[in-house]
């Protein structure tokens, strides 16, 4: 265990780093006061005062953007103007569905591969070839065959989540300790009970590790996928705000992507701890 004092010191240091970054950012984006001149006069005339910014948003602008988005996260003013909550919900549901599909396919298939050396050898070439393909490369095929951008997004999440889960499940199942299987054999445990009560709990930590990797990749990929196909989602939000030249909203979205990604990882990390056993 880390001593309390150390945790406290680390927290203080984190806050200090944050303040430092905000400070540098603030100074770097301070409006430049230019020598009074025609331009200045012109600006005054235009009612903009003597300030001129180079366009990069200041921390204060981000703060007010955050406040605005949080105050009303679920507004819907047409296809190009939806609240951040709605966009997130779209992204999360795509990730959730794709991830769920991947579990449904990868865990049973991983069991099969892990238990049968024959299947492992037969399927290994496919896995080795398919695994390194960027999930976005599937997008044209998905769009062509599925003809629905939202479902194509789900497919892309599925295809990128399935490999780490499949490989980890197969590995976890194949490396279940022989003595536990022998216990099950001497107790004449039925195959189904053996699968659920011995192999699954024994392999669960490894399977969850695969899921954690999958979720990390899925959250990276969904942003890119939504930028590509557009419509809805946090990725589309980033792209749309970039087209609006609203960098403040882009930075806000980046922050949200980071925090949600962290939260997803934390959730699976919790689940992982739940099934992990000490030997």
């Amino acid at each position, binding site marked *: 265990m880390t001593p309390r004092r150390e945790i406290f010191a680390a927290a203080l240091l984190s806050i200090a780093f944050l303040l430092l970054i905000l400070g540098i950012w603030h100074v770097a984006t301070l409006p430049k006061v230019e020598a009074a001149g025609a331009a200045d006069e012109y600006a005054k005339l235009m009612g903009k005062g003597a300030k001129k910014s180079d366009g990069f948003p200041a921390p204060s602008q981000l703060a007010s953007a955050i406040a605005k988005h949080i105050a009303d996260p679920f507004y819907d003013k047409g296809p190009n103007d939806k609240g951040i909550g709605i966009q997130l919900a779209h992204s999360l549901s795509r990730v959730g569905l794709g991830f769920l599909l991947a579990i449904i396919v990868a865990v049973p298939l991983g069991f099969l591969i892990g238990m049968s050396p024959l299947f492992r050898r037969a399927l290994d070439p496919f896995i080795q070839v398919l695994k390194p393909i960027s999930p976005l490369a599937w997008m044209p095929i998905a769009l062509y065959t599925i003809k629905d951008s939202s479902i194509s997004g789900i497919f892309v999440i599925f295809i990128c989540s399935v490999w780490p889960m499949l490989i980890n499940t197969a590995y976890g199942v194949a490396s279940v300790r022989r003595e536990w299987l022998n*216990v099950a054999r*001497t107790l004449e445990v039925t195959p189904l009970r053996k699968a659920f*009560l011995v192999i699954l709990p024994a392999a669960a930590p490894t399977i969850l590790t695969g899921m954690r990797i999958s979720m990390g990749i899925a959250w990276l990929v969904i942003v890119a996928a939504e930028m590509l196909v557009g419509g809805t989602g946090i990725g589309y939000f980033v792209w749309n705000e970039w087209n609006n030249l609203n960098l403040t909203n882009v930075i806000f979205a980046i922050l949200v992507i980071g925090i949600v990604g962290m939260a997803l990882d934390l959730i699976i990390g919790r689940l992982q701890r739940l*099934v992990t*056993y000490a030997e």
Partner: protein
Amino acid sequence: MPFLQVQDLKRTFPAAGGGTTTVFEGVNFSIERGEFVCIIGHSGCGKTTILNVLAGLDTASGGLAIMDEHEIGGPSLERGVVFQGHALMPWLSVASNIAFAVRSRWPDWPRSKVRQHCQQFIDMVGLSGAEDKKPAALSGGMKQRVGIARAFAIQPKMLLLDEPFGALDALTRGTIQDELVRVVQATHQTVFMITHDVDEAILLADKILLMSNGPNAVIAEIVENTLPRARTRHDMHHDPQFYRIRNHLVDFLVTRSKQFQTGELERPAEPLTVRPGVDAEAHRSIPDAAPAPRAAANH
């Protein structure tokens, strides 16, 4: 016909450079109902392999084993196994580990009956209070006790133990040995146990099988333990028989176990049955039957 009959058992493995190595062959012995049999031999002679064949976890290359008039062809709930490394499921508590076995044996039992049955065996091995602990929170001795309780809880016709106390310190081993004596006497359990501890064999066994060194190992002798059955760790060495038996066993392990390979001793077709505790002839080779320091077979 005896309860367990092992006839001409043989096990070969593919050798590293092609061909096969015969671990043991011509293994013959029998066990009566309610008998406690220990097998002693040097490491690698094939004791675990024999036990695995009896458990049905391994298949012999030749010969057969018949238990209760049925040939052993696979694992069965009729035979409980206590594994060398306890083999508890680390994600289950003590009670759940035992309940897993009990539910496998009696799938129709209601929850309350399973719990009550498990508790009885947890109490039997002195683990009351540790029911909800995970194996990782137990000492080596406690883990092995859970393994024993799990094997007893399915009330098998025969119990197979593979060096169950090998990894324990002497003090813990003594306590659990006493417990095993008590439980076996109370339940009249038929037991086949591997050990490398000569004193343990004398304490527990009615009959001790001596296995020669491998490859091509055989059961060379069967030593009948003529010490009265009501013996304890504390008083058995007061009996003059004890050192006669003990010396006979140690002498086998030190000298005779390797003489079957060199040809100095001829492989017996049927193992010789000896009673060194009472027969002068059996320990003729050891003129001085004086107390020897505590010794165990190398393992």
